[in-house]
């Protein structure tokens, strides 16, 4: 719903209408909501921690996930292979977790690219103001005017089959959200009395930026970055789904699912079921954590950050 922001005046009005609704909804729910949120947060954090730990440790401790063994093709789940084996005889438990590691890594790195780029653009735009601000906001408009998946497809299409392409495809298309949030935060802060005071007492622009603005915008930027992670995972899966994702021999959730199609046809449902379950569990827990954090840190900004 970020797009609403581009409709200058009208958008302002909508936001006020919506926040009114939220305030009402919030009070109606009362304190029961807080307890439920704590529970939700606890569950999400523990699921995510478990998944990340497994993704980090299992492939490292176990034998190499890339080993092809044509004697052990499509074994169903059992004590030896908890998730079964794939059409090339690789253990799926290890391979799925290795894939999860790759998919998460791609998502996190590309989110970091987005967040850094967005924060830089937003901070510069907000603190400089004037023509630089207008120019940067035009660029943001242009980036927002191209549907993200389409722009992402254009980028991967031209650098097909590389990890870098997927990272760039996600990183270069999602920074505009962060830039807007950071910019409006900076604009809000600039008008605060202590910033005014600092400026009028002769402090340099960069000093003010470092001392006052940066500490205030970092949580905002970090939050919008975390909110981007599930989106980045979705983006990577969609690209793989369209046959434009990571190099196909690399273990990633998208590639494993893609490889598993043939297996499913031959009755090996586990080749698709387990990696898909891992993926869903991961994205749901990340967005669960992000949602609780968002409600706590910046309750009024909910509508802007929703992706």
């Amino acid at each position, binding site marked *: 719903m970020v797009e609403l922001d581009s409709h200058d005046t009208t958008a302002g009005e909508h936001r006020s*209408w919506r926040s009114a609704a939220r305030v009402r909804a919030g009070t109606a729910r009362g304190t029961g909501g807080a307890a439920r949120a704590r529970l939700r947060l606890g569950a999400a954090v523990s699921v995510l921690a478990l998944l990340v730990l497994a993704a980090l440790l299992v492939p490292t401790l176990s034998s190499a996930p890339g080993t092809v063994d044509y004697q052990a093709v499509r074994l169903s789940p059992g004590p030896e292979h908890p998730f079964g084996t794939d059409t090339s005889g690789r253990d799926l438990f290890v391979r799925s977790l290795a894939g999860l590691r790759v998919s998460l890594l791609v998502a996190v790195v590309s989110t970091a690219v987005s967040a850094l780029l967005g924060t830089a653009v937003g901070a510069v735009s907000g603190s400089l103001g004037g023509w630089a601000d207008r120019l940067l906001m035009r660029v943001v408009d*242009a980036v927002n005017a191209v549907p*993200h998946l389409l722009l992402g497809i254009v980028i991967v*299409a031209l650098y097909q089959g590389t990890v870098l392409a997927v990272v760039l495809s996600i990183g270069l298309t999602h920074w505009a959200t962060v830039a807007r949030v950071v910019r409006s935060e900076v604009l809000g802060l600039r008008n605060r009395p202590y910033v005014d005071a600092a400026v009028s007492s002769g402090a340099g622009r960069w000093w003010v930026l470092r001392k006052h603005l940066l500490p205030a915008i970092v949580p905002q930027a970090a939050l919008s970055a975390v909110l981007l992670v599930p989106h980045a995972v979705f983006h990577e899966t969609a690209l793989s789904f369209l*046959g434009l994702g990571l190099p196909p021999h690399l273990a990633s959730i998208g590639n494993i699912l893609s490889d598993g199609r043939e297996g499913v046809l031959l009755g090996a449902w586990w080749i698709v079921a387990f990696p898909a379950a891992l993926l869903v569990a991961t994205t749901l827990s990340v967005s669960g954590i992000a949602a609780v954090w968002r409600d706590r840190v910046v309750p009024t900004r909910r509508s802007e950050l929703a992706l």
Partner: protein
Amino acid sequence: MAGLVARRIVLAVPVLLFVSLAVFLLAAASPFDPIHQYYGVQIFDASAADVARVRQQLGLDRPVPLRFLDWLGGVLSGDLGVSRSMRRPVADVLAERLPWTLLLAGCGLALAVVFSLFVGTLAAWRQGGWLDRLITALGHALEGIPPFVVALLAIASFSLGLGWLPVAGLTDAGSALGPAQVAEHLVLPAAVLGLSQSPWLVLHVRQSLLAAFTEDHVTGARARGLRERVVVLRHALPTALLPFVTLIGARVPELVTGAVLVEEVFSWPGVASAVVTAARAADYPLLTVLTLLATAAVLLGSLLADVAAVLLDPRVSADG
């Protein structure tokens, strides 16, 4: 009003130029060599000398700025270039495919709008009740499921499980193109596209309605003891419609994303699935034009939204 439209069109020109230049530069910086596209499998026994000659013949050896100007000049004079993956003019590809995408996206959006208005109103009306909670929860859940998963689930249940609707394509394998065939094949993709767009719309309708309930004229109507149905439909809904219309215009990017995935899953022969074909083949003459087209659609959507907002509510002055 005319001023608004004119201003937006003037603003759109630099955006479109920027986007086309950006895509063109990306393509130029890409390691991908379009000559491989032109040759296809014939590259395997092509001699280096012949390849160099063909490259020159096609103008691929010219510097990037000149190629961009060539391309831009072509576009302005109505020549959109040649699609290398389809081996035909880009204009032909658009002429053949755009109507199918418009049909699908139009039907999908219409379904989404009708559905969201109905369900969103229902939820707001029963605010806090089990129906409201169910609708809100489902909406949030559906927000998190990618459209292609929805599409696969729909095919698995309605085509393969129940056998009600065809799996994919525009017509059955051997059949000629006709309205009945197309209608039958349109149902599932349009429904999936509509459904994947509706969570935001449903939640939005609900919220705007809740907000509208607090406005003076609505509380006044309630106070006058009007029936709840009349209050909701006559007084609250019109107030809530304005932000809704704006939201629809602003959702064109998501509609495009949805169309890409849905067309691909259902082998729908529209421009959105051509994006994927073009991308797989790094066919950037086609890809550039399709990106521009999508960008223009987004800008048009936001313009229409603002025009509608101004028409519906004179208090709003867009670009004010």
